[in-house]
């Protein structure tokens, strides 16, 4: 029997480490070490209910397991063969217990290719990766294929870059392969910066060898002998596991000189980033690795012509790399049979926001937003109404009810005014104000703009100020025109992808929620009740019973009133935090 314990960052934060130790201790104490193995794996994706424990072979899926539950799991499940009922997953809608992951709505529609080994193998043990067909693709490519043949396989598979732009990965390799150069580099972009997206981190934490293997294949195809992983220093667990994996690969001779006796040499180093969003852009990333400021430069020259240290360089994202070994194992045709006409394979999404099942999911391209949000995501929290879903992070836009049945792929998302980005998906309900959402993303871009080109540095700041004016109820129709014009100009004239896409959240919310902008301007009203300057909390005299709950919870003591008498809010002191509204059990606080 195997007990798999999730060792991703999310579950780690909920003490899965201690749980792992406790389980091992219990197993040893009961003298079952020969029969039961306790293994830490990568992320299962169901972060909403972590820490996750999966029992093999009966596939029982335990959720929200605490270190104290270890004894009960071993005593009841392992020894007596009875499932621990209180730890089983309960369907949020139908309220029934589901004991196996394959029956859960969250997993039913998923197809895990990039995440295939996450939650299956121990990421700190190369033997488990080898057992799961690891390095078989590398063996095949190095011994049976010429670089051009292997590159052709990738072109035929139709794999597109998963970092945001969706450029065909095989074509990128082919360009880098054709460029002449004595020294070439392979770079893995692990500078994941979209708010809410964490798939790259999870892959590096759960299956680091798949990225290493793909980088070596990449090196062989384009004629490079050096690889660099650019990763943000704020991912300590991913860095640690990657280091362990690199050392193990070196020990096994799968990295270094004369790999598998073929005479091909490849070495990989790690470079740390300080977590600047702009460094996800490949030219900025390369400059940062060279020790320069993380600022983008104009393309061309593309990195394939002049990249790291002026040498031909191929940059791919973590998730892109993680797909590659499987493509060589199962063939380009297999991969191309999954997905839509122009977007092949699957995509990992980080589901977040007002959704029941927050977590990491992987679905075939062409799955609809409705399936992702309502079937896998389990619908909107607290039975509220769906309003919008933000995809593509600060570069993307908001999609609404009318887009729910759109099959998700690179081109459809762009056609609808958003983009794939790296796969963040933030779901919003009726309580979210779209002007505030646009302002939030602009705030992020203003913070993260490197400041090199004027449209991005100054333009985004102005966009942000306009949005602030509107959310204070002081905007005019002229401001709306300015927002649109300025947005278009920034898109057209910025140097890199950051500026070229930063007005998207504004433009797409204007397209889809025009009424909401008008309400802020014409009626000085925030329909969602979010913009603090436009709302007012008041006591509804006829409902107030004088329970004092509001007064006791008010952080600024602006509510006055005697017990059992109607209370009163002093508007001059009120900071509109909404604490009174949340605490009142008698509907005696109104928002207007």
């Amino acid at each position, binding site marked *: 029997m195997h007990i798999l314990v999730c060792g991703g960052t999310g579950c780690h934060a909920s003490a899965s480490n201690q749980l792992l130790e406790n389980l091992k201790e219990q197993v040893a104490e009961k003298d079952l070490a020969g029969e039961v193995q306790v293994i830490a794996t990568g992320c299962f994706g169901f972060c909403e209910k972590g820490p996750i424990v999966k029992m093999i*072979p009966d596939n029982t899926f335990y959720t929200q397991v605490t270190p104290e539950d270890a004894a009960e799991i071993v005593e009841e499940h392992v020894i007596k063969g009875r499932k621990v009922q209180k730890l089983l997953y309960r369907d949020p809608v139908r309220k029934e217990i589901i004991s196996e992951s*394959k029956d859960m709505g969250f997993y039913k529609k998923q197809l895990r290719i990039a995440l295939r080994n996450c939650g299956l193998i121990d990421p700190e043990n190369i033997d488990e990766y080898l057992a799961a*067909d690891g390095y*078989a693709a590398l063996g095949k490519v190095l011994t049976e294929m010429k670089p051009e043949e292997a590159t052709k396989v990738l072109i035929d598979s139709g794999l597109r870059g998963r970092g945001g732009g969706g450029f065909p990965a095989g074509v990128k390799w082919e360009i880098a392969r054709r460029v002449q150069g004595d020294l070439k580099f392979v770079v893995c972009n692990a500078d994941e910066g979209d708010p809410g997206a964490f798939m790259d981190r999870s892959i590096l934490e759960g299956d680091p060898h798949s990225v290493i293997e793909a980088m070596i294949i990449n090196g062989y195809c384009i004629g490079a002998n050096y690889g660099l992983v650019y990763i943000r220093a704020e991912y300590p667990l991913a860095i640690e596991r990657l280091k362990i994996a690199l050392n193990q690969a070196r020990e096994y001779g799968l990295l270094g000189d004369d790999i598998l006796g073929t005479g091909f040499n490849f070495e990989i180093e790690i470079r740390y980033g300080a977590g600047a969003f702009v460094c996800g852009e490949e030219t900025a990333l390369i400059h940062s690795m060279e020790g320069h400021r993380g600022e983008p430069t104009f393309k061309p020259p593309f990195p394939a012509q002049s990249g790291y240290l002026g040498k031909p360089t191929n940059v791919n994202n973590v998730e892109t790399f993680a797909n590659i070994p499987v493509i060589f194992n199962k063939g380009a045709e297999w991969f191309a049979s999954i997905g839509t006409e122009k977007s092949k394979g699957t995509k990992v999404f980080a589901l977040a926001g007002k959704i029941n099942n927050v977590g990491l999911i992987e679905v075939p391209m062409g799955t609809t937003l409705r399936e992702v949000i309502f079937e896998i995501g389990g619908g909107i929290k607290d039975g509220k109404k769906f309003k919008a879903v933000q995809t593509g992070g600060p570069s993307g836009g908001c999609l609404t009810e009318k887009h729910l049945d759109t099959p998700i792929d690179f081109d459809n998302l762009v056609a609808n005014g958003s983009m794939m980005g790296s796969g963040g998906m933030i779901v919003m309900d009726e309580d979210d104000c779209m002007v505030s959402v646009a302002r939030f993303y602009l705030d992020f871009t203003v913070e993260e703009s490197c400041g090199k080109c004027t449209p991005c540095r100054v333009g985004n700041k102005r966009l942000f100020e306009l949005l602030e004016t509107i959310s204070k109820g002081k905007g005019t129709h002229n401001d709306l025109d300015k927002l649109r014009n300025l947005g278009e100009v920034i898109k057209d004239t910025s140097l890199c992808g950051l500026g070229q896409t930063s007005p998207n959240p504004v433009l797409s919310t204007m397209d889809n929620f025009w009424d909401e902008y008008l309400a802020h301007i014409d009626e000085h009203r925030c329909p969602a009740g979010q913009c603090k300057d436009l709302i007012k909390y008041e006591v509804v005299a006829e409902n107030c019973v004088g329970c004092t709950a509001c007064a006791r919870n008010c952080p600024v003591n602006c509510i006055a009133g005697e017990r059992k008498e109607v209370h009163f809010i002093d508007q001059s002191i009120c900071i509109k935090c909404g604490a009174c509204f949340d605490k009142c059990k008698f509907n005696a606080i109104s928002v207007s």
Partner: protein
Amino acid sequence: MKKVKSLADLKKMKEQLQSRIALREKSEHPDGIIQVKVAMATCGIASGAKDVMDFFITNLEKRNIDAIVSQTGCMGYCYAEPTIEVRLPGQDPVVYGFVDLKKADEIIEKYIKQGELVDGIIPVNYKTID
């Protein structure tokens, strides 16, 4: 330190290591595979069920038989411990009692390999609900 020096080395290593995670991969489709459940409650363990289970795990692997061996709770036949349940694909499960290592060997060779019933079957007198 193990070095993987060639493709042949890599393939050999994979074969040797496969069993490490085979259980996890197989458990996704348990119906098509031989399942052996060993009753491992207190009475079973006291009568030597642990040794029997270890025997099944190592020997099924050694004899290249694809199977899932797992422990289960008390089946209720405490007079006949250790007891095991064997389920061949597409067949009803069969429960054997008084399984010592010799019996275990016989069960693998005759029942699991050839489908021939051997002595020691306990008629199943219960139904389980899922």
